[in-house]
């Protein structure tokens, strides 16, 4: 598996990272190097091995259904660049 220049641009766009044209080649090399490194894992034969989801034998803990949080709108919007009446304000997005 390897990435080309177009894939680099696409990944950048999906992640909303601006990548200028002269940066593309560098990213392409770096990403391919990382993928090549990870690729080595495929040399191991894992047929018949259960995928591991946790390093210790744990099950997903579940919470009782009760309201224990919330009720602090001013804290929620405290870091927002812009807010009004405890709404976040963002540049207009309309479908």
């Amino acid at each position, binding site marked *: 598996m390897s990435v080309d220049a177009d894939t680099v641009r696409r990944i950048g*766009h*999906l992640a909303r990272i601006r990548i200028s044209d002269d940066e593309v080649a560098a990213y392409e090399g770096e990403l391919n190097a990382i993928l090549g490194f990870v690729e080595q894992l495929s040399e191991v034969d894992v047929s018949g091995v259960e995928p591991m989801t946790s390093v210790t034998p744990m099950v997903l803990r579940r919470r009782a259904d009760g309201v*224990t949080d*919330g009720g602090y709108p001013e804290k929620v919007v405290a870091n927002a660049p812009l807010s009004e009446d405890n709404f976040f304000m963002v540049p207009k997005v309309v479908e």
Partner: protein
Amino acid sequence: MSIVDTRTPNPKYFIAGATGDWEMVIGMEVHAQVTSEAKLFSGSSTEFGRPPNSNVSFVDAAMPGMLPVINDECVRQAVRTGLGLKAKINKRSVFDRKNYFYPDLPQGYQISQYKDPIVGEGKVLLDLGEDGEVEIGIERLHLEQDAGKSIHDQHPNMSFVDLNRSGVALMEIVSKPDLRSSDEAKAYLSKLRTILRYLGTCDGNMEQGSMRADINVSVRRPGGEFGTRCEIKNVNSVRFAGQAIEYEARRQIDILEDGGVIDQETRLFDPKSGQTRSMRSKEEAHDYRYFPDPDLLPLEFDDAFIDELAAHLPELPDEKSARFIESYGISHYDASVLVADRDSADFFESVAKGRDGKLAANWVINELFGRLNKDGTAVTDSPVSADQLGGIVDLISKGEISGKIAKDLFEIVWSEGGDPAKLVEERGMKQVSDTGAIEKIVDEIIAGNPDQVEKVKDKPGLLGWFVGQVMKQTGGKANPQAVNEILKAKLGLE
């Protein structure tokens, strides 16, 4: 995934085009808000209509370092729903991240289930009246987070974001592409809503957005290859679903008949114009880059967990309908009307218990529901209680009042209240079955109308006029059957 066509084309649903008949193929993804106190992965409230961002915890706002902990009740509700859809329950399911950017999605991803949903294949039975019963396949049901809400009309160049809904648990219920007409699609939505309401797993309130449908529509030659589909997003009423499907099918047929091709795209339905329109295409919008959420272990439970939930499941509409037909001898149609709403079914059952089921169904459906609909009153707020209506039914069954008087009595109970038996007694509404009294009146009428008596011998239809006279004299209280018999005897008919 290969799609299996389970349906036989029904010419009744074909759409005539310039070049021949067409058939619709419809599948639905219904988002149903799980009924729970708290959100899917946080302890903040799900209550509707609260001030902006007041039902928001730091988890819902995706503050750094916050971790999701799943709500046990949401898991139970999903399993209950799966059981109600006669579906396969997956004892192990996995939460994935669905990645996209939007201002109402603070995490930058929605926690959803992709490859391993909590519920697998199931079915919903649709009762299509004279067309019989149709089984609609359910592909899957999975749990996921709802997004927040953007408001665009508060400011000229800014959108306002409220995260109260962000993180509320949704069940996405995906049907197979088994629906073949807008009527079937509407019946499916209604039935699904009824099932969810019976189960108590979603309030089914489409106006408040607790239930919304994404509708996939394509057209094809009857029984032919499936065509390219378009997805109509976020339809929030059963009626709009029907309109959107009709418009969209016609639009696609027109394109195909002009030699065009259908672009697979997402569309929006505009209730004002009754049309669907293309959403501004977001290129790569569908590259969600799903991967298992590293913050959450797989969700696992055992058979005992499922069995316990199954044991406490309420009676569902299909079973209730079958039981009503069996125990109360009512028609299939009446049963389907009664079970469509659990409160209506319960009301009927209180009236029918120990009484004539058919008569009870008739009074509940025609008189009570008719009157409730006219007033826009819910059955739970009915001014006539089940006991009172049962009392009226008793009086009819015992022959103490006629059907006509019963309607007057119903009006009195509706507007004034009171015990029907007492009212009949107090207001002298009792039916006169005393033949002596009726005979006396009949004799008077015969004596007073010799012309009519002469005519009725040739025109037996005139009997009705005599019946009318007797009823007039008795204020409608004479037993109609007794009146008929006495009149026929005295007039020498038959």
